């Protein structure tokens, strides 16, 4: 089918509705937030319209900078862990019979129906000293006595990877299913062991998919704010936790807005950088 460029104004009408939705539900609230981020806080009330950059200046202190750094690091780690686990898993899943694949995918979809709160408390029970998984290890003689595995950074990471993993698998699945299986067979006839062929052929052939998935999980993990509070110490709290704290408990809307804008800008910059690096490597 040949696609023709739209010529008249009438050709653009199908775009009208989504465009309107985008303006009402994204452009307007986001612009309001940007505007509020320059307002002045009124300690007795809410905020007064103004143009100050105090909110941004305050953000550039060591404390908030540290939280931002931690949030980004956590999101990157979650993304890398998810893809590292999900990619080989999904690859092996696509080699199984159709029925087995469907069962696994239904199971994964059902995990998506769990809310973040349920996931958080389930993991906090699992990592607890009294009822946790370590009791099991003691029972089979792996440990001497049960210990609490939370609140720790590892617990936060485990919970967030668990939450993001189904999304990762569902995004990777279509690309891996469509992968030509003879690519791997060709590598094997040329003398590559199955594992080596996987890293030499399957991974590079799906590089764009992997990069896209990394970005998706990264953005997803950046917004997480419940799991760090349930499974971690205050120093494991992400920027999203601080934004909520400022906006709801400290009633400092301008500062919360400034932090949110900053987070969006940094994420966009990182995503852009990833894409840029990806394109450069492609050109080689």
């Amino acid at each position, binding site marked *: 089918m040949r696609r023709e460029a739209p010529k008249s104004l009438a050709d653009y009408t199908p775009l009208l509705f989504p465009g309107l939705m985008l303006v009402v539900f994204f452009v307007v609230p986001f612009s309001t937030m940007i505007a509020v981020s320059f307002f002045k806080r009124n300690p007795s009330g809410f905020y007064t319209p103004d143009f100050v950059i105090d909110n941004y200046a305050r953000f550039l202190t060591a404390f908030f900078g540290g939280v931002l750094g931690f949030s980004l690091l956590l999101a990157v780690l979650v993304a890398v862990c998810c893809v590292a686990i999900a990619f080989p898993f999904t690859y092996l899943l696509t080699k199984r019979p159709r029925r087995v694949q469907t069962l696994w995918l239904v199971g994964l979809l059902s995990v998506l129906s769990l809310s973040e709160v349920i996931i958080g408390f389930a993991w906090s029970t699992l990592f607890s000293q009294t009822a946790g998984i370590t009791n099991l290890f003691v029972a089979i003689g792996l440990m001497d006595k049960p210990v609490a595995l939370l609140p720790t950074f590892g617990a936060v990471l485990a919970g967030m990877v668990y939450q993001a993993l189904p999304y990762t698998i569902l995004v990777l699945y279509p690309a891996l299913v469509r992968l*030509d299986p003879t690519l791997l067979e060709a590598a094997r006839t040329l003398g590559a062991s199955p594992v080596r062929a996987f890293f030499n052929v399957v991974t590079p052939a799906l590089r764009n998919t992997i990069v896209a998935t990394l970005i998706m999980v990264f953005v997803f993990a950046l917004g997480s704010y419940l799991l760090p509070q349930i499974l971690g110490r205050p120093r494991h709290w992400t920027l999203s936790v601080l934004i909520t704290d400022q906006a709801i408990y400290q009633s400092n809307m301008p500062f919360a807005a400034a932090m949110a804008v900053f987070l969006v800008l940094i994420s966009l910059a990182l995503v852009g950088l990833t894409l840029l690096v990806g394109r450069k490597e492609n050109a080689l």
Partner: protein
Amino acid sequence: MSGLDINAITKTFGNFTAVDKVRLNVPHGTFVCLLGPSGCGKTTLLRMIAGLEEPTSGAIVLDGDDITPLPTHKRNLGMVFQSLALFPHLSVGDNIAYALRIRGASKEEQKKRVEELLALIHLPGFADRPVAKLSGGQRQRVAIARALALSPKLFLLDEPLSALDAKLREAMQVELRQLQQRLGITTIVVTHDQREAMTMADLVVVMGHGRILQAAPPIEIYRKPADAFVADFIGITNLLPAEIDSAGRTTILGTAIPGLAMPVGVAKASVSIRPEDVHLGEAGGRAITGQVTFVRDLGGTIETFVEVGGTSIIAVATPRERPNVSVGATVGVTLPPESCVVLGP
């Protein structure tokens, strides 16, 4: 013992037997075509030789060594896939050098071998091109060069030319055969195209329902098909019913064919005769009388369809011996007994 020995190899998928106790000896340097309709087990047989499919029973012996338990990557073979399976993220040169890279060959060694192979497939200077920018025929050649990079003992091709258009396919058949003869490499090609098999092979193996129906040089398969299936699958043929009449003569469609002997004790059989062996002439005499129903004049050859008592006989002639016939005419069909092959009933 030199060459490839396939020893009673069987492959079953559940209840379905894809390959049934196949035995085949391929002497070193032979070009073999596995020929058959889809689902006859030819691709499964090739994949078992490559180690991509595990046989249910039987053994594959290469130059005296049992390679059945060896995984694919230790078998020292080159394979060209139907999809070609060129690595999309690598250049032409890197695709060809992949096997050498796996073996840890030095950069210079890889470069030298790539240049050799590119010269062999008539694509010099293509090393740095991305695979996506090649034409169908070029991709085909690159896949062949990649498979030959390590000078393997066995060269396997699975429907290698099916993606090409008819003209290019015929040219590649000749080229592939010449390449194989120059290198003297044992080659096995899976195909469903009998012309392709006739062009390239030293040995054509016709398969059906997981079994080998006939394994012989192409011209022998064409001249002396083992059964009706082979006769029908290889080229165009006339399959006609033959009977012994009350006088003890062999008859075809009610007309006695002197000189055509039936096997002892057989009263009814099928006879295969190639269209180019069927002669058309004046009606009467010893000829079978029939009516011309259609004439297809292709320029190079003329096919005449003659109906005899409900059975259609095809005769092919060259323009030089042009039979003077037209649709509706009554003609005499002569079947030379030496060209008739008596098949089973």
